[in-house]
């Protein structure tokens, strides 16, 4: 193989290799997003099954349905973002479970409206959806506020390098009942030796 052919092959590898790497990163990002979305759907359904009515208090003894809304922010690597931004991708799952054994024996004065559980990351609120609790014609989630603060530094001191990256995302969810849910997620990464170590 002549040098010219080798050089041409090297240039082609450099151009197409970078595109292939970009495509691989894109596929990894898509795969992670789909995996997290499927995971939260399954988790939410299991939460709805395990949150059987009539267990926690007499108020929901005659309720025949549970509805769970779960919102969770996950970190997915995104090469298009700048260094140390580390934003989180929201995933959402919802499930409603109705117990058939209460369909027949539901008393006349009991309420068939479901008990609603809303979870945001590690925060949770339970809503007994009696009449008037959720205003007519209003969505359950009225407003979502997200604030992301990030800082990062890459430094080279003579023949040693040290780098840090910190990001904090605060989320506040306002419900139509007037209640709010809040969560704060923090990632703190440091370059030690020759590897990145992140704590959350």
């Amino acid at each position, binding site marked *: 193989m002549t040098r010219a052919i080798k050089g041409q092959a090297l240039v082609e590898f450099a151009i197409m290799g970078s595109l292939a790497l970009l495509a691989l990163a894109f596929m990894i990002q898509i795969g992670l997003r789909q995996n997290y979305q499927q995971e939260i759907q399954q988790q939410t359904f299991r939460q709805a099954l395990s949150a059987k009515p009539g267990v926690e208090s007499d108020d929901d003894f005659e309720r025949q349905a549970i509805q769970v809304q779960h919102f969770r922010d996950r970190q997915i690597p995104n090469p298009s973002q700048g260094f140390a931004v580390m934003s989180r991708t929201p995933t959402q799952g919802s499930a409603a479970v109705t117990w058939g054994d209460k369909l027949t024996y539901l008393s006349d004065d009991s309420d068939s409206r479901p008990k609603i559980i809303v979870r945001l990351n590690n925060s949770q609120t339970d809503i007994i959806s009696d009449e008037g609790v959720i205003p007519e*014609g209003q*969505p359950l989630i009225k407003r979502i*506020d997200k604030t992301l603060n990030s800082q990062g530094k*890459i430094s080279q001191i003579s023949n040693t390098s040290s780098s840090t990256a910190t990001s904090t995302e605060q989320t506040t969810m306002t419900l139509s009942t007037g209640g709010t849910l809040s969560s704060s997620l923090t990632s703190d990464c440091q370059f030690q030796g020759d590897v990145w170590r992140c704590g959350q």
Partner: protein
Amino acid sequence: MSAGTRGQSTVEMAVMLGAVVAALVATHVYVRRAYQGYLYANASAHGQQFDPTRPYVMTQSMNKFTQRQTVDIEKVGPGVSLPGGSEGLPSVPGGELAGGAIKTTIHVETDWDVSREASYDARH
């Protein structure tokens, strides 16, 4: 010109050339110093020079990155709106069914501050 006169001129020429060469050899040190000074002055005009054998610090910082996202959700209209019967069919009732379209408004604000610092301890 007689042979003696030519010989005297030759010796004088040789001594003169030898004296000039000796003077040049003696002053070459100063010529070299002058040229090195010219080089040093030009190099100094460029400022500090990076020397990897000397201590240096280079830092790139993202001092601040802030992104605020606001999502407002509201229901607009019913799921299905039935107009009801006409004059020919007055008994058909109209009304609205539950559901409804959702209108989502998203507002994003981003602000960042990036800086770069470098300091070298140049060779003097």
